[in-house]
């Protein structure tokens, strides 16, 4: 069945094999102006998805359509090579050409599409100005900071005015101290791009904060999709639950201590001061009947607000002083005789708490 061109956005419903035992199946539609995140662990097939949509791999069945143009349709014998697709890709690690200067990198797409050298360099320079990169035109990519490289990669992808913006792990190459700030810069530029946007990531924070819609990819198959809230409230697989339940806390850090609301949390990271975003995976939180012995320095007594049975695991929402979501094995759950309304001791190792500097926000998202 060949569907006709639909709308202005991306329509991708396809499958392909990699190697002997890996198979990717994807079904997503993104309207212009919307951001979808494809979230999954390593080896889930995210890179394969990028390669297929960009045309670097040929799909085996299905159809990929973009802005009314069919990019792939093996049944109809259609395959558009990557250079003929209007897909702007910000690659993982950015892949800026090391032998070309910043402005030549940005002009590359225009030159390849036949624009004259002077015109393309002028247009590239405009984009560098737009992305706050003035003064770096002649620099080689090896001498850029992570944030600068990210924006150059973004400029290089956007300068050709693509119909789709594809971002593959746009923040993973950055160090933790700049990630928060650059995510917001990225968020702003995504807003400026009128077409559909697809963000590929393994980082739930990135997915939940950047995307309007999240698709969870596990072992080549989308196991769940929905708005970030839908995923977080009703995760359907243990991976989704692990990610979705992630506790995101905004606070202010100083000397290894973060103030969240009126509660202090000990951090392993002592060098970050100021506003921070803390992430705590539910499985990193342990529950105890009595005050636990040993090293955990983050430990307090709280109440059990809600218990959700996920099959092999049990999710527990705790109450004041700091509402959190914990997850324990079903076995531990029955040993502890958990029940809603009861008091329980909670412990988190400082090393299990993710910390990212954050500025401008203070309320928890």
């Amino acid at each position: 069945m060949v569907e006709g061109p639909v709308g202005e956005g991306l329509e991708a419903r396809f499958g392909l094999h990699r190697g002997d035992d890996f198979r990717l199946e994807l079904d997503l539609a993104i309207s212009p102006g919307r951001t979808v995140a494809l979230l999954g662990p390593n080896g889930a097939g995210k890179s394969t998805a990028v390669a297929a949509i960009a045309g670097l791999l040929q799909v085996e069945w299905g159809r990929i359509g973009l802005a009314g143009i069919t990019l792939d349709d093996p049944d109809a014998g259609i395959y558009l090579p990557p250079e003929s697709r209007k897909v702007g890709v910000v690659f993982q690690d950015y892949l800026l050409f090391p032998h070309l200067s910043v402005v030549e990198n940005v002009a590359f797409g225009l030159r390849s599409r036949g624009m004259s050298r002077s015109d393309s360099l002028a247009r590239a320079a405009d984009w560098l100005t737009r992305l706050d990169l003035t003064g770096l035109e002649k620099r080689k990519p090896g001498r850029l900071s992570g944030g600068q490289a990210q924006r150059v990669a973004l400029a290089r992808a956007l300068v050709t005015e693509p119909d789709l913006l594809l971002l593959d792990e746009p923040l993973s190459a950055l160090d933790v101290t700049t990630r928060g700030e650059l995510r917001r810069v990225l968020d702003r530029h995504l807003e400026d791009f009128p077409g559909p946007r697809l963000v590929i990531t393994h980082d739930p924070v990135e997915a939940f904060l950047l995307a309007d819609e999240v698709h969870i990819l596990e072992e080549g198959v989308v196991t769940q999709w929905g708005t970030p809230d839908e995923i977080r409230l009703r995760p359907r697989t243990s991976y989704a639950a692990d990610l979705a339940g992630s506790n995101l806390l905004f606070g202010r850090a100083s000397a290894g201590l973060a103030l969240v609301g009126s509660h202090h949390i000990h951090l392993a990271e002592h060098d970050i001061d100021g506003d921070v975003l803390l992430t705590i995976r539910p499985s990193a939180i342990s529950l105890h009947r009595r005050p636990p012995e040993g090293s955990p320095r983050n430990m307090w007594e709280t109440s059990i607000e809600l218990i959700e049975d996920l099959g092999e695991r049990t999710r527990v929402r705790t109450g004041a002083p700091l509402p959190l979501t914990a997850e324990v094995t079903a076995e531990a759950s029955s040993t502890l005789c958990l029940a809603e309304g009861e008091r329980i001791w909670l412990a988190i190792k400082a090393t299990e708490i993710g910390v990212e500097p954050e500025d401008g926000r203070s309320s928890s998202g």
Partner: protein
Amino acid sequence: MGSRRLTIERRAVERARRPPVLLIVLAGIGFAVFAVPFIGLISRVPWTDLPELLASDLVIDALRLSMVTSLAATLVAVLIGVPLAWVLARLEFPGRSLVRGLVTLPLVLPPVVGGAALLFALGRRGLIGEPLNQATGLLLPFSTSGVVLANTFVAMPFLVITVEGALRNLDHRYEGAASSLGAGQWTVLRRVTLPMIGPSLVAGLVLTWARALGEFGATITFAGNLQGRTQTLPLAVFVALESDRDVAVALSLVMVVVSLAVLLVLRERWWKAL
């Protein structure tokens, strides 16, 4: 305490910087292995007769022919060796390791064997040479083209293995990035792949050219030895050694000077590029 620890550390650093004597001695011997023969050669140079010897037809013909054939062989190696390296690095096909082995065979084979093999394949009575000769009248042995072919056969493996290695080490996601930016396959090759392996390509070219310039065994076996047509510098040196030692030494000196000059210039350029 603090300052004492600092002195100890500094002393340790200094000790690490002073290289072991044995290493220097061995390195000196290593250098002597290269240097002593050249000193021997230079000690035999007939300086007073040198200008006259260098102006002789024999020397000028051999120098000209060596330059032409070694550069032509390098050019041929680029035209067919780089694509071969690309195929070996990028395409999976049955028998690839066999092909790779064959390509590197001339590196270990005595060049005379290579010359004989060329003769059996492309000689006038050769497997391909005979039908080729009958169809086109083309005759490779005893011709300047034959010299270029022998040089290419012996020297091209240097280009193929350096370029193949570089292509393997090249992160080919860059090429994907280039094509997603609208570059066709040739543009990707020209503007991304080749520039990114540039230093290895230059290294391979230099090695190939140097090997071609020094080629002797395959050339004399396949292409013979005739002044002005097939007698390159190494052949001229070999023949002259038996008749006129002064000419032989003069020819050798020309080879040493030319090779050294080119290698030094290229190396200088190359370092600057990095």
